[in-house]
């Protein structure tokens, strides 16, 4: 099947798989299956306006975070920290946007987006340096940093960034002039959607066509060969990949603030950074396919809200479905051995070409039969 077709059919299949799982869960918990799924469908695709305001708006941060996860996983980095990086991006963008006068306009908006991008990258670089310098597993450090980011946000919206009346734990509103423009009048669909799609295409191009993207992919796929045969500075490439990954998630947070919420508050993200793992895996870490899988999960989440409202089904059930999808995908080798190819978590910092290995290494091929010297 051509790749373009696969990029559409595969997310659809996963969507069906999720619906099947959801139906079973609903039945088991005693909810009316038909009614609930109808509510889900109406909430996700029921009309142009819910598609635009619900599904696509939800899909946007998922796509940014999904791209962040993809680029990290492609580089052999298990960044589970998109959630925290997104929050820090949102916080930085808010800080910039609320401190600028309305006259800053588009330039101010750009500045806010850039600030969010940089903050996300900086937050991820902490995990990158911890891995490089001290061999701290990024899986653990990024999760820790997610929690810290949550509390930092909590601190900001009760302290330096709290709204002027000092009543609610949230920031002041971003001025109209500094918000992302609406794409469709009457809906919440904002220009951030286009920015996300452009980022996906740009990332795909970067990975495929540039020398730096090639180095990133080779480092992720086999860091030892990348260093030994390619002379690649894998430590540097990994660190840059951490930053790039965090930057994408941070941009996602900045877009969320300037396009949807217009203010910073603690529960800004309902776990976008975690759902993003499912988005990235479903897309086989391919940035363009991630567009489709972000829409699938965006629809699921938008539909879940409708389901909760109309059929009183807890929205948390969608989290169960997402987890189920990830489990099915990893169990079926959907993404092959691309993820975690570097194998042992014990790798500590980064492998080096000159690392002396023990004399016997288990997975190497056996010595050949050598006849030449004994054949008469």
């Amino acid at each position, binding site marked *: 099947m051509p790749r373009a077709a696969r990029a559409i059919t595969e997310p659809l299949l996963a969507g069906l798989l999720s619906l099947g799982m959801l139906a079973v869960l609903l039945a088991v918990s005693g909810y009316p299956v038909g009614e609930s799924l109808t509510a889900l469908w109406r909430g996700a695709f029921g009309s142009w306006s819910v598609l635009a305001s619900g599904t696509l708006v939800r899909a946007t941060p998922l796509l940014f975070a999904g791209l962040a996860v993809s680029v990290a996983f492609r580089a052999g980095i298990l960044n589970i920290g998109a959630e925290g990086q997104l929050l820090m991006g949102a916080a930085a963008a808010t800080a910039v946007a609320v401190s600028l006068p309305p006259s800053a306009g588009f330039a101010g908006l750009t500045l806010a987006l850039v600030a969010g991008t940089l903050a996300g990258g900086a937050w991820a670089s902490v995990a990158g340096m911890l891995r490089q310098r001290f061999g701290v597993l990024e899986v653990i450090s990024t999760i820790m940093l997610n929690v810290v980011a949550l*509390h930092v946000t909590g601190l900001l919206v009760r302290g330096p960034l709290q709204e002027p009346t000092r009543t609610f734990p949230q920031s002041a509103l971003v001025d109209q002039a500094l918000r992302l423009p609406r794409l469709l009048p009457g809906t919440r669909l904002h220009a951030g959607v286009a920015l996300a799609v452009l980022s996906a295409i740009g990332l795909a191009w970067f990975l495929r066509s540039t020398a730096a993207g090639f180095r990133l992919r080779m480092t992720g796929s086999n860091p030892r060969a990348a260093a030994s045969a390619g002379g690649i500075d894998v430590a540097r490439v990994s660190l840059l990949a951490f930053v790039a990954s965090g930057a994408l998630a941070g941009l996602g947070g900045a877009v969320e603030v300037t396009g949807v919420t217009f203010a910073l508050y603690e529960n800004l993200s309902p776990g976008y950074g975690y759902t993003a793992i499912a988005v990235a895996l479903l897309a086989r870490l391919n940035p363009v396919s991630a567009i489709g899988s972000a829409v699938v999960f965006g629809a699921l989440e938008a539909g879940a809200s409708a389901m909760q409202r109309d059929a009183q089904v807890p929205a948390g059930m969608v989290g169960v479905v997402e987890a189920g999808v990830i489990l099915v995908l990893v169990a079926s080798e959907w993404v092959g051995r691309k993820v975690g190819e570097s194998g042992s978590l014990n790798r*500590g910092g980064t492998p080096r070409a000159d690392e002396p290995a023990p004399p016997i290494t288990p997975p190497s091929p056996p010595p050949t039969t050598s006849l030449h010297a004994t054949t008469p």
Partner: protein
Amino acid sequence: MTAAPLADFLEASVRNATPLLLAALGETVAERSGVINVGLEGAIISGCLAGLATASALGPEAGLAAAGLAGVAIAIIFAIVAVGLAADQIITGTAITMLGLGLTGTLYRVLYGDTGAALSAPTLSALAIPGLERIPVIGRALFRQPLPTYLAALLVPTVWWWMYRTRSGLSLRATGENPAAATASGVSSRRVQALAVLFGGLCGGLAGGTLVLAQVGTFAEGMSAGRGFVAIAIVALGRWNPVGAALASLLFGMASALQFLFQALSLDIPYQIFLALPYILTLLALALASGRYAAPAALGMRPQSAA
């Protein structure tokens, strides 16, 4: 005069350390078999809800047992996917955590209604050891604690002895270092790993039960609050050794208890800093420990497929 806040601080430290220690002991065993279970958080939260639901019907001791079983149940899913099907451990574990959080949130609403009204469960009362509890400063911290604390304290030497002094403990350690060698020596390394993961789930579930039944007294969505991840960090900090895990848990118990001490000393510091402190400390401690050299050699590795 300063003795009372200090005794309070130590008591709170031990109390906070207990669920972390239980979870970390289980994870230590799992990781020594070469499996890192990031789904530990899911086991803990499952233990929380099962503990609450069972305790309100059958009493807190039954609740604790049910919490352990719930942890095992969710660990079974992890074991099937990550050990049985040899899928990536980290991604599987992340999904298991999402599953645990989503499932408990949903079930809680299904069981107790939309409002998610705070339901309180009967709790395990502190068991005082006569005489010893009167020791100044440390008496209450060590000898007037609820059942799970004594359980965890007993588990530390037990797990240590088992790991280093028994043949099955040897099989566990060998599997974590070199599963292929263990298999060739007659050890069924997949089975060792699966059982180690289930033990990890049991301990994680007990940790969740402890949280509900010995500390909070109720359930809230996501109340495990990252303790599973902290426990994984504790395992690394404790150098994959049960005694090390005990010391590291205590350290984190103290970090979380600092807020009580500071409140007692009437220092005005935003509480988010205290909430974030254990996690920041974890990062710092991991950086300083640079634990990678002590890690089991095959940790996180997927089995090589044939040919």
